[in-house]
Each structure stands twice: as structure tokens, then as C-alpha cells.
């Protein structure tokens, strides 16, 4: 839409104001967003590339990287299935309580990660709702991998659904109705009609969800127990190294996470070019 026609010359679109406005925005963006990213690179490589690689190879840092990857391997598929199911139910059907369900699905966006972590502690912690039961059966959820997975699942729950719902609403039910009329059964309709329609939006939702899973800090810092080399995810390890006055090590770990974030944005830009429409991916 925006590519086709030249930008209209509106109120602020003429004369001296145009380059000035663009210049100020670019300058502020460079200072506010560009500088922190540049700082991560500079600080991480301040002692040389070799030092950065060495600090990433430390056993505790390696363990943190693996833990974060493990969490992503579990959480991203769970939230992808949930996101598709929620978008399917909410975008393709009308039923009582639909708006309420949509609000609940998006609720984790509004809840502070700290509140999320504390809530999970009250469910699965020693003095929590299921605490006595879990203890009796020798199951450990808090301050262990399952707790980290649960809290991260909560915080990143809406990402896939949020990308898919506006996309599916925009596309309507026409294709699925035609498929059903032609005799396709449910899964055939999904895999051969719907999935190709939503694949780029889905992929972006998954990529963004993955970035947030790897980066989750607040909720995980409550439920992880911060056991060095065991329940420390990579963002928690950044904090630990930082407070150990190992700035170069902390920023080397931060650089890994920054590269994931930059890769995420790159994939997003590519996907927008493929779909040819920025609006479909913004989905607000």
C-alpha cells in the first residue's frame, strides 16, 4: 500500500521542515536505540575477540546458553500450537465470551514479568497451592527447569496469536469454506489451505516469540533460583557476570543475545518484503 504511491505532501511535508524532522528523528534514534546496541559490541570486544570467545566458552556461560536453548526448544512449539489454536478459534468463529477470551490471551502482555514470576511461585512453590502435593511426590518445579519453562511460557504466550488473529480476520473464512464444500476434511483444510495463507505471519510470530523466550528476565529471575551453571539462563547470567565486575564477560554474553535480536529483525524485514505489506505483520 505505502510502496505504490509516493508519500503525500501533507501539513509538515514541504519546505524546510522535512529534512529537519527527518534529521532530528534519525539523530534521536541513533542516540536512543543505536548507541546501546553499539555499546554492547564495543564493550564485548573491548578485550579482543579472543577474550570474548573465551568468556563464552566458560562452563557456566556454556551451561547458561544451553539452558536458554532448551527452554526455547520447549516453549516456542507450545506457544506456536497455542497461538494457532487461539487464532483459529477467535478469528474464524463467533461465540459467547469470544472478546473475553481474546483479552485473556493478550493478558500476559499487560502483566509485569515480576508479577508473573511471583504468581507461579504461589502455585508451584513450597508454600504454594500445589506445594505439599509436589513435595509428597518428590517433584521439583520451582527453582528448576520446569518452573523456568512455565514462567517463560506465560510471558511469551500472546506473541504467535497476536500476529495471526488480525491476519486470519483479514483473510476471512472464504478459502476454508470452499475447501470444506469441496470435501476436504479438517486437517487437509488446515495444512493445505490455511497454513500457506498464514505462513509468513506465523513465521514472524514464532521468530519474535523465540527472541522473547531467550531474553526473558523478570519472571525467570523469580522462579529460577539462580543456581550458577544449573538454573541460570543467559540473561540471568549476564546479570551475574555484570555484578561480578566481569563487564567484558557480561557483554560477551549480551552480544550473543543482541545478535539473536538483530537476526530477528532481519528475518522480519525479509518477511515483510516477501509479503509486500508491512501492515499484515504489524497486526495491532
Amino acid at each position, binding site marked *: *500500500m505505502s510502496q505504490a504511491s509516493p*508519500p*503525500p505532501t*501533507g*501539513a*509538515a*511535508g514541504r519546505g524546510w*521542515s522535512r529534512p529537519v*524532522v*527527518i534529521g532530528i*528523528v*534519525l539523530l*534521536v534514534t541513533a542516540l*536512543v536505540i543505536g*548507541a*546501546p*546496541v553499539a*555499546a*554492547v559490541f564495543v*564493550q564485548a570486544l573491548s578485550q579482543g575477540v579472543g577474550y570474548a570467545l573465551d568468556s563464552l566458552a566458560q562452563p557456566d556461560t556454556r551451561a547458561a546458553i544451553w539452558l536458554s536453548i532448551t527452554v526455547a526448544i520447549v516453549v516456542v512449539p507450545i506457544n506456536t500450537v*497455542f497461538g*494457532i*489454536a*487461539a487464532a*483459529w478459534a477467535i478469528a474464524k*468463529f*463467533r*461465540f459467547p465470551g469470544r472478546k473475553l477470551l481474546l*483479552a485473556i*490471551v493478550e*493478558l500476559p502482555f*499487560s502483566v*509485569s514479568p515480576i*508479577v508473573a514470576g*511471583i504468581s507461579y511461585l*504461589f*502455585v508451584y512453590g513450597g*508454600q504454594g497451592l500445589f506445594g505439599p502435593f509436589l513435595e509428597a511426590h518428590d517433584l521439583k518445579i520451582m527453582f528448576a527447569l520446569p518452573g523456568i519453562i512455565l514462567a517463560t511460557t*506465560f510471558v511469551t*504466550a500472546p506473541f504467535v496469536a497476536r500476529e495471526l488473529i488480525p491476519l486470519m480476520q*483479514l*483473510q*476471512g*473464512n472464504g478459502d476454508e469454506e470452499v475447501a470444506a464444500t469441496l470435501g476436504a476434511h*479438517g486437517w487437509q*483444510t488446515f495444512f493445505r489451505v490455511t497454513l500457506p495463507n498464514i505462513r509468513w505471519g506465523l513465521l514472524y510470530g514464532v521468530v*519474535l516469540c523465540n527472541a*522473547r523466550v531467550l*531474553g526473558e*528476565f523478570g519472571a525467570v529471575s523469580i522462579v529460577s533460583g539462580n543456581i550458577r551453571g544449573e538454573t541460570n539462563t543467559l*540473561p540471568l547470567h*549476564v546479570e551475574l557476570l*555484570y555484578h561480578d565486575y566481569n563487564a567484558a564477560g557480561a557483554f560477551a554474553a549480551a552480544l550473543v*543475545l*543482541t545478535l539473536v*535480536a*538483530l537476526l530477528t529483525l*532481519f528475518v522480519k*524485514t525479509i518477511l515483510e518484503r516477501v509479503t509486500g505489506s*508491512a501492515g499484515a505483520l504489524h497486526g495491532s
Partner: protein
Amino acid sequence: MGMGGAGALPRRRLSTAGGKGQGRVVPGFRLSLGITLFYAAIIICLPLATLILVGARLGPADYWAVVSSPRALASYRVTLGAAALATMFNTVYGFALAWVLVRYEFPGRRVLDAIVDLPFALPTAVAGVALTAIFAKNGWFGEPLGALGIKVAYTPIGIALAMAFTSLPFIVRTLQPVMEELDGEIEEAARTLGAGTVTIFFRVVLPILVPALLAGVSLAFARCLGEFGAVIFIAGNQPYSTEITALLAFIRIEEYDYPAAAAIATVMLGTAFVLLVVTNAVQALARRHELAP
């Protein structure tokens, strides 16, 4: 895209007329709703309901004593003040950023558009350590600012800065689609009728964008209030002066003072609910505005 939306409208009406269950052609209603309800109950509702329950078990007197303690009140003041400052900054900057992205064609526009999402993609802890490094006493910006007598790191301004960083995309991404629909014709009409640039902006452009702007602002403000990872590195974390509410709740957990943590967390949850209701009301208003001819 506008055409597609118009085409989808009558179809949507048809399926509404279909009522509950009967006559549905599209398959998978029970399965998708079942998965969604199960997940929403276990992952989203159960923990939050448990938190409210734990908070309620405290009893009114104890609850009030925790949430109105001087340290808690100071933390609300710090959090709300910094969030307000961050949101004000982002309202102006985010508006200008969205305007530049929608209205102007220039080299690097696509890169700028991609960069807007960086605060979403970058882990908050990384943003926190990076901002602290820049604004610390010997940092890139901290040193010259310090020479001018301005301290950012370990002050409320630093807290506001971290909040502004993480919440910026909410305002830009809410404004962008609405600005794209504003095609300049109305402005040309106003100009033809003799209105000046300033008049056009405040009396023609801004009123159309206000609902979307408010929705973006309330989303960003809510995000600021809940932010933890980016803030704690740059905040200084001194009780009564640079301690945010999320950190106070975190500290109570570390001290095993679970009832106090629950009480403070319910205050945060309640605030989030209120803001959510406000955001939804504003967005409903925005949608009505969009549909108006």
C-alpha cells in the same frame, strides 16, 4: 488491503447470522477452542487467580499496612513518575518517528522501520546493561552530561530512560497504520480553504490520530509500570528514591516475605487491569472513529 477488508465484511456478518454451532462450515471449532481454553486456564488464569487469592488471605488490615507502607508509597511515586516522563518523551518522539516512516521517502527508511522493533527483540537485561554502560560516569553520554552537572545513571532519569527504550515500539506501531490511512487529501482540502500548517496539524490531523495515540500511550505506560530487567541495572535501587515497585516485590520474595510480595504484586496486577480496560475502551473508540465516513 482496504479492498480485502471491505470484501471480508459481509462474510463476517453471514457467520454471525449462523449463530452458535449450527451451520458452521469451517472445521476445528471444538479442538481449537478446547486447546485455547485449557491453556488459558492452566497457564494464564490459574497463576493470576492464585496470586489474588494469596493477597486476599492477608486480610484488609495487613494488606493495607503493606501496600501503604512509606517504602511502598515511595516506590509507586518513583515508578509512576518515571513512567510518566518516559511516556511523555515517547509520545513526542514516537509520533515524530511514525510520521517520518509513513510520510517521507528517504534512504534508510526501511532500516529505520526495522530498528523500531529492536526494543521488542532485545532482551531487557541487555538493554539495561548497555544503557548503564553509556550513561555511567565514564560512559559515552554519561561523561559529557556529567560535565554539565546532569546525572542519568542511578537516578530517576535513568529509570525513565530505560522505560522509554523498552516501550517505544508500542506508540509507533499503534500510530503507523492509522497514519497510513490518512492520505493527505483532507490536509490539501484544509489548505485550499486557507488553513495554515499549524492549524491543519492541530485541528485536522491530530484529532484523527488522537484515539490511536491514546491507545499506544496507555499500552506504553502499562509496559513502563511493569518493566524490570532494563530498569534495575540503571536505577541505583535505593529504597525511597530509586526503587521501583517491581523491584520492591522482588526484594520481598528474596526475603521470603511472601505475604508482602503478594500484596504488592496484586497492586501491580490491579493497575495493569485498570490500564487494560482503559486501553480497550480507547481502542473501541478508535475503531468507531475508523468506521465513521
